[in-house]
């Protein structure tokens, strides 16, 4: 599946047609006005619906019809890619730039990407073995990308690292990267916990075991999730509390 911006990449794809450059039939194109319109959750939705690979194509940096749209796309896709690498899907998503004059380049990117995905094989979501686990992981990634914490960070990234805030401070890129990576990592685990205890109450050690992290970490996350009203005590069995997800809380 390919998300193409109207002004450059979609026009580039048309030019490939006018020039009769042949490429594999596997791609289905969705036209958007700007690559910056592609909400990272669209990509997760595609994976959740069994799509094997996703291309996001925009104008070359500096050539965006909407001035800064493709820079925003780059920022969004970079965070998405970090999250996807946690669930081993990052290879299946690619962001690239194709101008309206690059029919050849478009065909080449599609051909290469198709070949690459064919070598990777079909999406693991289609294999029955780990299907539930993978769906849970992708759902966790999706809810991280839907959370206002991460969306807020991504939306303000360019602003925060290029301009001074109200106190006259500018956040260095390196510090922002650390902040963002922390947020991505923690939010991913938190949303994973929420999904694990969606229907059945589970104890901290059980959750830790299932996700494969330390019980102490799980407890820390549970505290945060409780304060957000996303998780609550389910019942207490032999002095061990179990926790369960509750309705959508306030973040």
């Amino acid at each position, binding site marked *: 599946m390919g998300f193409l911006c109207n002004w450059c990449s979609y026009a580039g794809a048309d030019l490939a047609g006018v020039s009769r450059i042949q490429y594999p039939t596997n791609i289905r194109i969705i036209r958007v006005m700007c690559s910056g319109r592609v909400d990272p959750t669209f990509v997760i939705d595609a994976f959740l619906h069994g799509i094997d690979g996703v291309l996001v194509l925009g104008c070359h940096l500096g050539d965006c019809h909407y001035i800064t749209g493709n820079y925003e796309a780059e920022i969004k896709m970079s965070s998405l890619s970090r999250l996807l690498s946690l669930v081993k899907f990052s290879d299946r998503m690619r962001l690239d730039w194709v101008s309206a004059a690059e029919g050849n380049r478009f065909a080449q990117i599609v051909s290469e990407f198709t070949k690459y995905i064919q070598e990777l094989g079909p999406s693991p*979501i289609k294999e029955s073995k780990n*299907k539930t686990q993978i769906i849970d992981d992708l759902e966790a990634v999706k809810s991280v990308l839907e959370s206002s914490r991460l969306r807020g960070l991504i939306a303000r990234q360019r602003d925060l690292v290029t301009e001074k805030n109200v106190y006259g401070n500018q956040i260095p890129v390196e510090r922002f990267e650390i902040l963002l990576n922390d947020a991505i990592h923690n939010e991913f685990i938190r949303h994973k916990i929420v999904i694990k205890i969606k229907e059945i109450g589970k104890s901290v050690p059980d959750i830790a075991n299932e996700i494969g992290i330390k019980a102490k970490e799980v407890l820390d996350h549970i505290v945060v999730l409780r304060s957000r009203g996303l998780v609550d005590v389910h019942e207490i069995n032999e002095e061990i509390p179990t926790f369960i997800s509750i309705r959508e809380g306030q973040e």
Partner: protein
Amino acid sequence: MTSEDIRIGVFVCHCGTNIGGVLDVPSLANYARTLPNVTYSTDNLYMCSEVGLTEIKENIKEHKLNRVIVASCSPRTHEPLFRAICQEAGINPYLFEMVNIRDQDSWVHMKEPEKGTEKARDLIRMSVHKAALLEPLERVKVAINHSAIVIGGGIAGMTAALNLGNQGFIVSLIEKEPELGGLLKSLNKVFPSNEDASTLLEIIDIIESHDNIHVYTSVIIENITGFIGNYKVTIKQNKETIDVDAGVIIVATGAIPLSPEGYFGYDQKKIISQLDLESLLKNDQVKANNITMILCVGCRNEERRYCSNICCMSAIKNAMLLIEKNPNAHITILFRDIQSAGTEYEKYYRKAREMGILFINYLPEKPPVIKKDFVDVYSALLNQDIKIPQDLVVLSTPLIANEDSEVLAKMLKVPLEENNFFLEAHVKLRPVDFATDGIYVCGSAHWPADIAESTSQANAAASRASTILWKDHLEVEGSTAEVKTELCIGCEACIRICPYNAITKDEETDTAIVNKIVCKGCGLCGASCPKNAIIIHHFTSDQIRAEIFTYGGAI
């Protein structure tokens, strides 16, 4: 509208043999009929022909269609045509969808007709699911104020104002100095015609007596609000605050010469600036015989990397004027590179050399040194130091951006480049436009420009502005962003991300609002909103997801 009410018509085009020669078009039309909400489908040899268009119109009526899909070529070329047909048949043009099965299918999969047909089936199915979710949108008509504001009363601003005034538009010409004329007032003669600057300044009288041009001098701009067709500039003149309304704004604020203070011992007596020389020449006060000019003073260095464009020619002009007045004078021009592009300027430069003006190239790392009666300069060509007798040194400094350009840029919400000159929308394709609609730039505000360049840019800006001013009203795209106020938390992320400053905050409700006239529908805000509170009409998340889900299917 409930889903029972949705009646989609799918029209599949053969495009002669372009599509029909590769894909199985009749089967695609049959397939479309099996899809949800599709009431009618057919195929035609040329959907865009008179016959094809009539067929669409007739079937809209006959089958009471309320969504139309054409599977043919690219929406980039044919969407406007089909949309217009829908409108003629009484369907909102935004209830039309196009499927690209030629440029992105039959033409690129010519040797795989079966797989190509399968792809076309998927694309049509995706489109049908999106079409069911389409909403009718209105193109808003906005009234236009048919007058213009020109900021800056130098040669560029005056030329732009006169151009628009002569076309019959009311123009407000705003100047911060007490008089019109700008830098031209301090010049003696202008290159390459060597006519008096005062001849060009006759335009001032024409402007001041022009019925359509209102001149405001000694003015400070306090605030600028509005958008294309409806700008308001609040100015202060003699402690009086005046609101000036206009449909368009032209920025012609010019530039100022860098003071040579601190360079080469500038003292305004024996070591003067090119502008000082202009006034000496004007008043016939030049006494010196041995005159050395130094070019590129204070520019093309680390601090100012740019070339100021006008200095080579103005130095050459003054050197020739000096020789004309005093044929015994010795003039030397110390340069780094001479810029004399085009036939006129090259001829001018040659003439200067023929007149005996000496040109010596110096290296920035070994700049000339001014001693009491001579200038020491290293010539790389001769590989030796040269002593040039002097009794007057003239320094050419660059034009630099006005100090207040930053404030003005903020008020106009337009960008500046690294040297604080105004930055156009596109260097080649939109050289006098800003990315913000209805604001234009000309003259040295944009970049140091000579008079010929300034006036041609001014006429260009005026002509761009008149493309708006001649319209009765503006028609604004219906596919814009809209904030769902009840979800908005007022975080302002969208306000910062919008490339067009189309989003502002409603102070009362503390939520974001989109100005539909300024919004271009790029969708950046919607994809970024932390609360998913922004709908991008015609490319809504639901519509895009419908396409994704339809292709992907259930897992």
